[in-house]
C-alpha cells in the first residue's frame, strides 16, 4: 500500500505547553499547522506542573526582570547563556499576561491581581531578600495553562493528529528537515507529513531513570530523533533531581509547599537545611536541597524503618492555607503516601525530574547543528521546551522557570516560523531514501522469534541509569555505567515483540520509546563521565569544585561514535552588563 502523505506549512511534534503556545501563534496567523501528539493534548506532561510560572510582575513583593535574570544566571551555576536568559526574563511578563488574557484561572490577590508565591532561588535586588515571583493557579498551574492553551487552539482551529507517534525526522542530502514519518497509533498505519518548518516540542526524558516524577510518555522522543538525524544534544549531563518526590514512589510534591512555609526535617526532627543553606534554607536552589537530603540519609539521619527518606513538614501551616493553595498536594499525599499533611509530615526523597540539556537552539528556538560559537542555525528546524536547550537553565533550573521556558520559547518559535514561512514558500523535494530509513525503523519490530521483552530491557536500563548517573557521580561508577548502557544498546537487537498486530499496539510504541530512551540515556551518561567538575546538578565528589577555567562551556554529544565536542557559554546579555561567575551560595 502506498504511504499516505500530507503537507503543512509547519509540523509541530508535541502538544504540551511549548507545542500548543507555538501552534496558537501560527494558527492565529492563518498558517497551515499540524500538531502531532502521541497522547490527546491535555494528557501532555505540562498538565502535571504544580507550583507555577515565574514572571517579575511585582504583585506581592518588589521585583523586576533584571533580578529574575540574576537569579536565573546564578541558579544555572553560570552555564546558562545570558542573552537567552535576559530575553526569557523580559518576555516572562507579557507572556504571563497573554496567558491570563487567554483564560488561565490564576489564583488572585485581594486587589484582583495574579497571586505570586515564593520559590527556591528567588531574590530581590541581586541576591537580597526572598522574592515572590511564581504566578500560581493553586497547585495546578500546569493543568490550568495546558487546558487553556488547548481551548484557545480549538478556537483557532489548529489541526491535531491525536495519538500519532513520531517515528523519525525526514531530511534531504543537505541535512534540511523535510517533515516526519509518524504512526497512527489506533490503526498502526504510517503517515508521512511534509512540512516547510518543523518544531520539536516533545518534552523531557525522565523515564530514563527508575524513580521519576515524569510520566510514562516522557521518553525523550524528539531528542532521540535529533540524534538519529546526526544532530547533537547539548549539556545532557545536567539532570535535575527534584528534592521532594514522595519517598519510594517519585510523584512530585511541589516546591510551592516550601514556598508556602513548609520545611524539611530529619529523623531527629532537625530542620537540617539550616546547616546546608543558612540564608535560603529550604528555599535554596533545587540541586542544593536534593544533595542535602541525600547527604542526610547517607549520614544516617533518614526517617522510616529503612532510614531512607526525610520528612516534609506542613502541619504547622493553617489548614485554610493548605486547602486554598495546596489542595492537589494534600490529595496526592493522602493517596500515595497515606498521610494527611494537615496532620502528619510527608515522607520525601529526591526524584528524577527535569533535563536541563537538550536540542541546542539559539534564543529564537532555531536548532544549532554545530559546536561553532558563531555557527548558523539549521534552516527550518526549531525546538522549544524541555526537549530544547536555549540554554536558559544551564547546570540547574530554578523552580517556576520551566513553565516559563516552554511558554516563552514556544511562543517565540511560533513567531519566527511565521517569518520563515513568508520567505520560504515552497516545499523542498522529498528524499525517498530518508523515508525508507524511517520505515525500516518501524519494520524492524516485525521481526519474530524468541528474545528479550521490551519491559525486561527497559527495567535493566532504568536501574542502570539510576545506579550510575544519579545525584552523586564518581569516575569509576560512571565509566561502568557507560559500558553497561552501551551493552544495553546492543541488546536492543535481541528484543522481540510478541504482539505484531496493528491496532493500538502499545507493545510496538513502547519498543520505539525504549530505543529513544537508550539513545538519550547514553547521551546523559557519556556527557556526564567527561565533565570533570561539579556544577549545578552535576555533582562529582571526585571533582568537588566548579572549574570555570576549564569547564565553563557547553557539552555537545553526537550519537555517531558517541562523539563529544564543546562550545562557549554566551556570557554577553542583550542590553545589560554580564553577570560574571561568582561562588554560588544560598
Amino acid at each position, binding site marked *: 500500500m502506498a504511504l499516505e502523505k500530507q503537507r503543512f506549512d509547519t509540523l509541530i511534534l508535541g502538544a504540551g505547553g511549548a507545542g500548543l503556545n507555538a501552534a496558537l501563534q501560527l494558527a492565529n496567523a492563518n498558517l497551515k499547522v499540524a500538531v502531532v501528539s502521541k*497522547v490527546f493534548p*491535555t494528557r501532555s506532561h505540562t498538565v502535571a506542573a504544580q507550583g507555577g510560572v515565574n514572571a517579575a510582575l511585582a504583585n506581592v513583593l518588589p521585583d523586576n526582570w533584571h533580578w529574575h535574570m540574576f537569579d536565573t544566571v546564578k541558579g544555572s551555576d553560570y552555564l546558562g547563556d545570558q542573552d537567552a536568559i535576559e530575553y526569557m526574563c523580559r518576555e516572562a511578563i507579557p507572556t504571563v499576561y497573554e496567558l491570563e488574557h487567554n483564560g488561565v484561572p490564576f489564583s488572585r490577590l485581594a486587589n484582583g491581581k495574579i497571586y505570586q508565591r515564593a520559590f527556591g532561588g528567588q531574590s530581590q535586588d541581586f541576591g537580597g531578600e526572598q522574592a515572590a515571583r511564581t504566578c500560581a493557579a493553586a497547585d495546578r498551574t500546569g493543568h490550568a495553562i495546558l487546558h487553556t492553551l488547548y481551548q484557545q487552539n*480549538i*478556537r483557532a482551529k489548529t489541526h491535531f493528529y491525536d495519538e500519532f507517534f513520531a517515528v523519525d525526522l525526514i531530511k534531504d542530502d543537505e541535512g534540511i528537515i523535510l517533515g516526519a514519518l509518524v504512526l497512527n497509533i*489506533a490503526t498502526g498505519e504510517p503517515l508521512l507529513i511534509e512540512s516547510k518548518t518543523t518544531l520539536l516540542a516533545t518534552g523531557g526524558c525522565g523515564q530514563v531513570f527508575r524513580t521519576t516524577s515524569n*510520566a510514562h510518555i516522557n521518553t525523550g522522543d524528539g531528542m532521540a530523533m535529533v540524534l538519529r538525524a546526526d544532530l547533537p544534544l547539548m549539556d545532557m549531563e545536567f539532570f535535575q533531581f527534584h528534592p521532594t518526590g514522595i519517598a519510594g514512589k517519585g510523584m512530585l510534591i511541589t516546591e510551592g509547599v516550601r514556598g508556602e512555609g513548609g520545611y524539611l526535617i530529619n529523623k531527629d526532627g532537625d530542620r537540617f537545611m539550616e546547616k546546608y543553606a543558612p540564608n535560603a534554607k529550604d528555599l535554596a536552589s533545587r540541586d542544593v536541597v536534593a544533595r542535602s537530603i541525600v547527604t542526610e540519609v547517607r549520614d544516617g539521619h533518614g526517617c522510616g524503618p529503612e532510614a531512607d527518606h526525610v520528612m516534609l513538614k506542613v502541619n504547622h501551616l493553617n489548614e485554610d492555607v493548605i486547602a486554598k493553595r495546596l489542595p492537589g498536594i494534600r490529595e496526592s499525599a493522602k493517596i500515595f503516601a497515606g498521610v494527611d499533611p494537615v496532620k502528619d509530615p510527608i515522607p520525601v526523597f529526591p526524584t528524577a525530574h527535569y533535563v536541563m540539556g537538550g536540542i541546542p537552539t539559539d534564543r529564537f528556538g532555531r536548532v544549532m547543528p554545530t559546536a561553532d560559537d558563531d555557527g548558523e542555525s539549521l534552516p527550518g528546524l526549531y525546538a522549544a521546551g524541555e526537549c530544547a536547550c536555549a540554554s536558559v537553565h544551564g547546570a540547574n533550573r530554578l523552580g517556576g522557570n520551566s513553565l516559563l521556558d516552554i511558554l516563552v520559547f514556544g511562543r517565540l518559535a511560533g513567531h519566527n516560523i511565521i517569518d520563515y514561512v513568508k520567505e520560504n514558500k515552497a516545499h523542498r523535494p522529498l528524499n525517498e531514501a530518508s523515508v525508507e530509513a524511517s520505515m525500516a525503523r518501524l519494520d524492524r519490530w516485525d521481526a519474530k522469534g524468541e528474545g528479550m521483552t521490551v519491559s525486561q530491557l527497559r527495567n535493566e536500563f532504568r536501574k542502570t541509569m539510576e545506579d550510575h548517573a544519579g545525584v552523586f557521580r564518581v569516575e569509576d561508577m560512571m565509566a561502568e555505567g557507560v559500558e553497561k548502557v552501551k551493552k544495553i544498546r546492543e541488546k536492543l537487537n535481541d528484543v522481540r515483540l510478541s*504482539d505484531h498486530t496493528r491496532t*493500538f499496539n502499545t507493545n510496538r510504541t513502547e519498543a520505539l520509546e525504549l530505543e529513544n530512551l537508550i539513545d538519550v540515556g547514553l547521551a546523559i551518561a557519556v556527557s556526564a563521565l567527561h565533565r570533570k567538575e561539579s556544577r549545578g546538578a552535576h555533582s562529582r565528589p571526585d571533582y568537588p569544585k566548579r572549574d570555570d577555567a576549564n569547564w565553563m562551556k557547553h557539552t555537545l554529544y553526537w550519537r555517531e561514535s558517541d562523539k563529544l565536542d564543546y562550545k562557549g557559554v554566551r556570557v554577553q546579555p542583550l542590553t545589560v552588563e554580564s553577570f560574571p561567575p561568582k561562588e554560588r551560595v544560598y
Partner: protein
Amino acid sequence: MKFSVYRYNPETDSEPYMQTFEIEHRQGMMVRDALLAIQEQDESFTFRHSCGEGVCGSDGVNVNGSNKLACITPLTELKEPVEVRPFPGRPVIRDLVVDMSQFYAQYKQVDPWLQRKEPLPEQEILQTPEERDQLDGLYECIMCGCCSTACPSFWWNPDKFLGPQALLSACRFLADSRDQAGEERLDKLEGPYKLFRCHTIMSCVEACPKGLNPTKAIGHIKAIMLKEAI
C-alpha cells in the same frame, strides 16, 4: 490477587471475552500498577495511561462496575476477582482503549475558551479572590470521561445531550467574571436535549475522580437560564 480483564483485538478476536490474571498484591498498589503487572505477563494487553498521579486523565476504566481512574484507585478497596472493563457505551478500539471522539466533540460544542468583547488591558484582567472562587470545582476537570460515560442520559442520547463533562466546562466559563459571552453560551444550550436531558441521576458525581460535581454545575446553568428568562 485475581483480575478479570476485558479483551478484544478486532484483528484477532471475533468477539470480546474476559481473561483471568493473577498478580502479586504489594502494599500501596493502584489498579494501574495491577494493569502494568498484567501487561508484563501479556504484552498484547492494551490500555492508556501516563502520569500515574491522577492529573492527565488517560486511564479512566470501569472497575467492578464503576468508572475510575486506574492510577489513583487502590487495590485494597476492591472485591476479588477485580473486573476491569472499558468505559461503558463507547466503541472499543482494543481491550480497555475506547474511542472518545464523541466525548471530545461535545466538549468543543460548548466553545470552551474565554471570550472577551472589550479590549484587553495591558496587564492582567482584574478578578477578585471571591470571583476567582467561583471557578473552584469547575476548572479542575481533567477530561478523563469517567462522568459522561457513566451517565444514562449520555448513553441514550449521545448525539444530542452534551453530557456532564461538556456542561461542567460550559459552567466554568459562565462562572468566570472575565468572560463576556454569557448570553451566547446560554443560547447555545437552549432546547430540550443539550442541557435539559440531565435528569439529575447524579452518576457523574459518583464517578468523578477529582471530586467535582457536574450535576450541581448543570443545576447552576439551569438557574441562570431561569433568572435570565424572568
